Every structure is written in structure tokens, then in C-alpha cells.
């Protein structure tokens, strides 16, 4: 595709846009920084990013604003902020993709190409290599591979699903490339500071009573979640099972998951209910380790036993002290 500023402004994460910015350079004017901060604030508050007027004048600025927003997000260096921002940028791209899907197919193709995703058109549908399908679709009933047409390594997807896959690719790219490690100008750092002040308060969670009795792996997962680090599915399930077994009420458990970048109250509540109803048993330490969730050799066999172990130790110590006094 020949160079196209309109394309770059719509899809500022594309290799073409990056190349343009590298060559043209950026000027961080006060207006750009202000707009970039607004872009992030809106992303943080509503999960969206506003589209700008589709005019050549705005295109170039849009690129600068995007680059500056990434700098601010990096300066803030907060997983929750980055997670929310990635989701919002993906949604913004999704909206443009939906428009371009009917009028500028070459744009959609160029976005796919930028991610190295090889869609092929097959009648009214598209096909995509199965490993890319698995990498960019949610694990849900709708996308279950077992119910898909899979042939010669290609999975058939609808026109709409093709756009959803690209949106997810944008989100993953944003998450993987932020934060940028660099020293930023003062006005960028100040903007980052103002955004950090807007973040939901996380302290109440980590000061929950009883948490000091949780084993290291569970504490680590809670910490990751509160920092909005994406916890893999196996980790979320293990954490929920642990908390259910620790006797926490539903709302308290939901609270732990509230800062996950893709948090949905409804889904989370349902999943915890499900675990409670089906009486899922806690994975052993060995299983936790094989999932990559074990962080310390506490040798308790099962995370649920950690509590007894330390309590047991304290009891024994108290007993010994008492005997010593007698």
C-alpha cells in the first residue's frame, strides 16, 4: 500500500504509522500533550476513545497525540491504566475497522498484514490459520474450536469475527509494547501524575484481614490483580477456589477481581457461583507449580494447608513459651 496519512491516523499502531512518525518526527506541543491526556482520561473513565474529525489537518496531530498518550501511559507505568487504555485503543480501532470493512477493504487488509495475520477470503467468509485463531479469540462457547470448520489448518470466520480478531490483536499489541522504557519530558510526567491520581483506590483490598495467612502464591495473584496484571485463566480459577474455601462471601471475592483489565461483574459472579456449586477442589502445590503459579517453596503440599501450617507453628510456639514460664 502506498503511504497514506489517513490510514496512519486511524491505525496509529500500524507499522506504516510508526515508520511515518520515525521519519517526520514529533513535536510535543502543549495542545498535543493536553489531547493525549484527555485521550487517556476518557479511556480510563469510559473505556473508549473519541474519534476526531476526518480531516487532513487532524490526521497528523492524531498521530502525535497517540504517540504522546503512549508516553504518558508509560510514564504512569500502572498496569490498570495500561490495561484500560489498551482495551480503549482496541475499541477505537474496531470502530474504524467496522467502517472501513464496507468502504476501504484495503485498509482492513493492511491492518491484518501489520499483525502478520493471513486472512483468506472464502465466499462471504474468511479463513485464518488455526494458531492465530487461537491466539486472538476468547475461550468461549462461541469461539470453541470443536464447533468450527477447520480444514488444512484454516478456521472459517465470519466477516464480523474477522474484525473482532483484529481488535483483539490491537489490544494484545498494546499490552505487549507498553510501558516504553525511557526518560520523559516534564509535561508528560505531570500528565501521568494527574492520571494516576484518578485511579481507583486499591489499598482497601490489600489490607484485608486474614490475608497475612494466605500462602505466597495466593498473595502474589491478589497482588497481580490489584496491579491489573492479566492473570491467566488457570490462576483466576485457582484464586477463586482458594477464596471460596477460605470462606469469603461472594461480594468480597468479586472485589478481588475488580481490577482485572477485562473485569465484568456479571461473568465473575457467575464463575465464582459455579465454582462454589460444583465444589471445585484446590489444585495441589505441584499442579500450581506446573501452571507457573507457584512462587515459593513453602512445601505445604496444597495452598489450603498453608494456613494450618503457620497457625500450627504459632500455636506450638505459644505452647512452648507457656511451658517455659511454668
Amino acid at each position: 500500500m502506498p503511504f497514506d496519512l489517513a490510514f496512519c491516523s486511524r491505525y496509529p499502531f500500524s507499522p506504516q504509522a510508526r515508520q511515518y512518525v520515525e521519519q517526520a518526527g514529533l513535536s510535543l506541543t502543549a495542545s498535543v500533550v493536553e489531547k493525549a491526556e484527555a485521550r487517556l482520561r476518557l479511556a480510563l473513565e469510559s473505556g473508549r476513545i473519541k474519534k476526531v474529525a476526518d480531516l487532513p489537518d487532524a490526521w497528523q496531530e492524531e498521530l502525535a497525540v497517540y504517540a504522546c498518550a503512549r508516553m504518558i501511559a508509560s510514564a504512569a507505568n500502572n498496569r490498570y491504566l495500561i490495561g484500560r487504555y489498551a482495551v480503549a485503543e482496541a475499541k477505537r480501532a474496531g470502530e474504524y475497522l467496522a467502517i472501513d470493512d464496507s468502504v476501504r477493504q484495503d485498509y482492513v487488509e493492511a491492518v491484518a498484514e501489520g499483525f502478520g495475520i493471513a486472512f483468506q477470503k472464502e465466499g462471504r467468509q474468511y479463513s485464518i490459520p488455526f494458531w492465530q485463531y487461537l491466539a486472538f479469540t476468547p475461550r468461549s462457547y462461541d469461539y470453541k474450536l470443536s464447533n468450527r470448520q477447520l480444514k488444512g489448518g484454516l478456521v472459517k470466520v465470519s466477516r464480523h469475527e474477522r474484525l473482532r480478531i483484529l481488535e483483539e490483536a490491537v489490544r494484545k499489541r498494546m499490552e505487549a509494547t507498553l510501558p516504553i522504557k525511557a526518560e520523559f519530558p516534564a509535561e508528560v510526567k505531570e500528565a501521568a501524575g494527574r492520571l494516576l491520581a484518578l485511579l481507583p483506590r486499591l489499598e482497601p483490598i490489600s489490607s484485608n484481614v486474614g490475608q497475612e495467612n494466605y500462602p505466597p502464591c495466593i498473595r502474589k495473584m491478589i497482588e497481580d490483580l490489584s496491579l491489573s496484571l492479566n492473570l491467566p485463566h488457570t490462576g483466576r480459577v485457582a484464586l477463586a477456589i482458594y477464596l471460596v474455601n477460605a470462606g469469603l462471601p461472594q461480594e468480597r471475592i468479586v472485589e478481588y477481581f475488580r481490577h482485572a483489565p477485562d473485569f465484568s461483574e456479571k461473568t465473575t459472579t457467575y464463575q465464582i457461583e459455579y465454582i462454589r456449586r460444583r465444589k471445585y477442589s484446590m489444585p495441589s502445590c505441584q499442579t500450581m507449580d506446573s501452571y507457573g503459579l507457584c512462587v515459593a517453596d513453602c512445601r505445604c503440599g496444597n495452598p489450603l494447608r498453608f494456613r494450618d501450617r503457620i497457625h500450627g507453628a504459632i500455636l506450638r510456639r505459644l505452647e512452648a513459651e507457656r511451658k517455659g514460664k511454668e
Partner: protein
Amino acid sequence: MGTVEGEGAKRAEDACPEERLIRKMFSSYYRSAHFEAPQIEKREFGFGGWEKKIEFRHIKAKSEAELRGRLVSEAPLYVSYSVAYYEFPDARPMVRKNWLSADLVFDLDAPQHTCGKFTCAECFEKVRQEAIRLIEDFLVPDFGFSRGEISVNFSGSRGYHLHIRSQSIQRLDREARREIADYICGVGVSFERFFWTEGKKLFGPTPSDGGYGGKFARAFMERLGDDEFCLSISRRLKSREEKDRLASSIMQGNWDSIGIAARERKLREKFEQMRLGMAGKIDANVTADISKLIRMPGSLHGGSGFAAVPVRSLEGFEPMRHAAVFLDGELRVKVAERVPALEVAGVRFGPLEQGECATLPMACAMYLLCKKAAVVA
């Protein structure tokens, strides 16, 4: 890793004569054995002994020569390597290893059978057929792997391991691999996803479709040659013309050309009865485990004395013949339990009663010693 060697040496002293003999034989095998461990420096190794298949893990080997040296000196009874590649294979806990990528593997085992630990020829034949089915009905046509990308390996015991090392699958996470296993097992397949009505007409898959829709359409067309099957669907299918009419309309995805009573219920029943997936044939947990330790190709299996040999072609592969390695010499053994008539490395022997002594070719004797079914006489 001084501790591991130290413990190994201590164990050698109080090992039984059988274990000592087996380790001596294994050690000599590893002097010149060919084993396959691509990117050896990034894999974690696990060694097993007389009691446990993995006694020591988190072992790292910088080169083939280093690994060979350890295999010769320690002669573990089982050698596993990680399907994963790590930055620091010997670090622990697991997260510190820094997972980079992993091969995609499939594990097939012979079914439970009265032959017990002396896996019989029929059981080996069954699992061989399943391995062929996995490759020819799933991995090649559906997933698009070439036969050259799939390394088949005898597990050393009762089945086969398939290793796929292609770049495309290396970075797939646990959940993605679970999806692949679920697909192969047919987990989550639902009839509704492949059939739908437009107006009153029932539409469904054509034989050329990918996925379970196509599998069902093809199996269904094939079964139209079977009168009993046809009758269970509709009396109309007694007639040649009606059969042809249905067959040619299915080719277009129209499943409603001849008016079958309760068509959806009947088709759904057939869909479920046909067992188009491989549920229970592969171990989905092995495929999903991105840090699984699996028998190293070319290593020996301490429970059989066979080598986990790479299988160039499954056609005509017989484990009891082609995986036996100790072909020189003979040994007098005393049988500790009843042993059925067997054939190892082309030599028939048995049945042998408990307490009976026999002088057997080395491969047969090693097989019985490893099975803990005999002692050195």
C-alpha cells in the same frame, strides 16, 4: 547439581542385583545411543529410578555430550525432557525458568486390558491404529500439518508420543492447547452448530466441509451403504432412488430431500453415536501441559527395557520387535510371577510359571527384569 549425583551414588550401593544389572546395561546403551533432543540447552530434564519415573527434575544439560556423560555415569531408568524451552531450565520454582515456547505433543496409550503389564499384540495394534487415525483424520487434514512435521515416537511402554516442533505452534498457551485437544476429542461439539432450519427445510454440513460437520456428513454418506443403518433412519431409504436422492442433496448441504420423520432427533442420535472424536484415546492433559516432562526420544524405558525409538513409519511397526535393544548374550532368570507366552525381539518364550528358571536371550530377560516379573537366577 552435585546433590543429584551424590544421591545416585548412595542409591547404587543398596540397589538390588536386578537394578544394578539394568543400570549397567542402560549405561552401556547410552555410550553410543542416538537420542533426539533438539535445543537441548533450553530443556529441563527429569531422571527416574527403580521406584519413581521422575526422581530428580530441574536438570539442565548444556550439550548432548554433557547429557550423554550423565546418562552413562548415572544410568537413570527413565529419562524425560520438557516439551518446553526455557531461558533457565534448572531454575525453580517453575516461573523462574522463564518459559519461552513449547512443542505440541500428543500422548496415546493402549487401552486397559486383561493382558495387564505384559501388553499384548492386539493392544499394541489398537493403539497403533489410533495413532494413525490421529495423524490421518485430524493432524493432517484438519490442522494442516505435513506428515514430515509430525515426529512419532514409541513411548517405551504402551503407546506413542507425537511431537510437533513447528514454529507456528510454539507460543500457544495452555488454553489454546486445551482447545486443540478438545477439538481432537470432540469435547464441546454440538449438533446445533452444524444444522439449522431455513423455513421448514433442514440444512447441514456437506462432505467437503471442514470440522465435525464435514466428518459427520462423510461418515453418514458412507453408512448409507449399510441397510440396517438406512432403516434406522427411514423406511424410504430401502429404495435405491431415494438413497441417491438424499446423498446428492447432502452434497449441497440439504438434509431434507426425502422427508424423514423426526429427522432432527434421528440425526442428532447418529451424530452422537458415531463417536467422530478421539475422546479417551489421547490424554488431553498432556497436550495442554506447556511444561510437561515427556520420555526423551531415543531413551530407555525402565519398565520394559525397550527404547523409546523414533518411529519413521507406523506401517508395520511392532514395539516388541522394533523397540528391543539388548540383542547380545543371554541371562538365566527366575520368574517371580506367571508370565504368559511372549515374543520379544522375534524370540518366543513362555508361558513360565512362578518360581521357574529359564535361560533367555538378553532382550527377553531384560524385559522381564524391568517388568519386575523376574530376578537374576
